[in-house]
């Protein structure tokens, strides 16, 4: 899977969130705010293909979490992104 290239991360008042690029008509209920880990995961996905397992491994390397917790966090984040059409 990979990131939807039309979705970009922006920061307002120090809060990172995802927004559809070029979508100047922002609807507040469609803004997806991210916490620090989620923002890091989004950056880490980069522009290319990735698998949840790849992300979980990187998460373990970067943060002090167990493999099990990393897999669970990545899976939850990916479901959330898919629900909002942020992946393709």
């Amino acid at each position: 899977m990979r990131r939807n290239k039309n979705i970009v991360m922006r920061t307002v008042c120090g809060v990172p969130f995802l927004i559809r690029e070029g979508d100047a008509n922002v609807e507040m209920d469609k803004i997806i705010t991210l916490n620090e880990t989620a923002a890091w995961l989004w950056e880490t996905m980069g522009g290319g293909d990735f698998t949840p397992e790849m992300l979980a491994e990187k998460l373990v390397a970067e943060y002090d979490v167990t493999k099990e917790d990393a897999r669970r966090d990545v899976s939850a984040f990916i479901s959330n992104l898919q629900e909002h059409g942020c992946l393709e």
Partner: protein
Amino acid sequence: MSGMMLSGIYKIADVVVQITSLYDEVQNLCADYRSDEKPLLHISISQEDIEAEGVKSDQEREREGLPEFHFEASYLETLAVYRKLATQLIPSGVLLMHGSVIAVDGEAYLFTALSGTGKSTHVRLWRELFGERAVMINDDKPLIRVGSETSIVYGTPWDGKHHLSTNTSVPLRAIIHLQRDTTNHIEPQIPAQMLPTLLQQTFLPKNGAVGMQVLSLLDTLSRQVKFYNLHCNMEPEAARIAYEGMH
């Protein structure tokens, strides 16, 4: 309805605007802001705009759990005018934020909260505490011009049910999120903590290519003003504690 269009020119937030309306209520509302300069913006209201405003008011009241209420078309027109004006002002860096604004010694404080929390009551305590040092800028829907160095808050004709406002502008020092409590205390907030409140209380047009502009203006604003969270009761000392907590 008379079938005649009414028109007037006003200067609001330093922008000269011509307002063409079906009823005279909005023209009377704006009377203190009359101007003889050349208008930069033109706002004209149709019957459809007024009907759409009625639908929006109904939806809002339902969302807030308020009973149904029939507003007069002339009143709905005042809202329709402000919606159009606020939308057209965004590209000039002007935001409409719901809140009660008072200036003390030439610096403005904007209190914001959900309707019915007691913003106006708290600001009344400030007027009583500071007397002639205080100027009521706007009790309901002020405009904020977000500049590169400072942000300025303006009085506007849309000033709440007690019509408390002054046709003036003052640098905005702080935005305070107000919560009712039994005791009084105030603490600084970082912008990220304040963002949900700012998004909730800032006018964001549903139709219009300006959403990102609003977000970017809020981002700039957050670097120019201080944010606080105020817990307060309705005793006079609430105003003193709030003021001292910001100085």
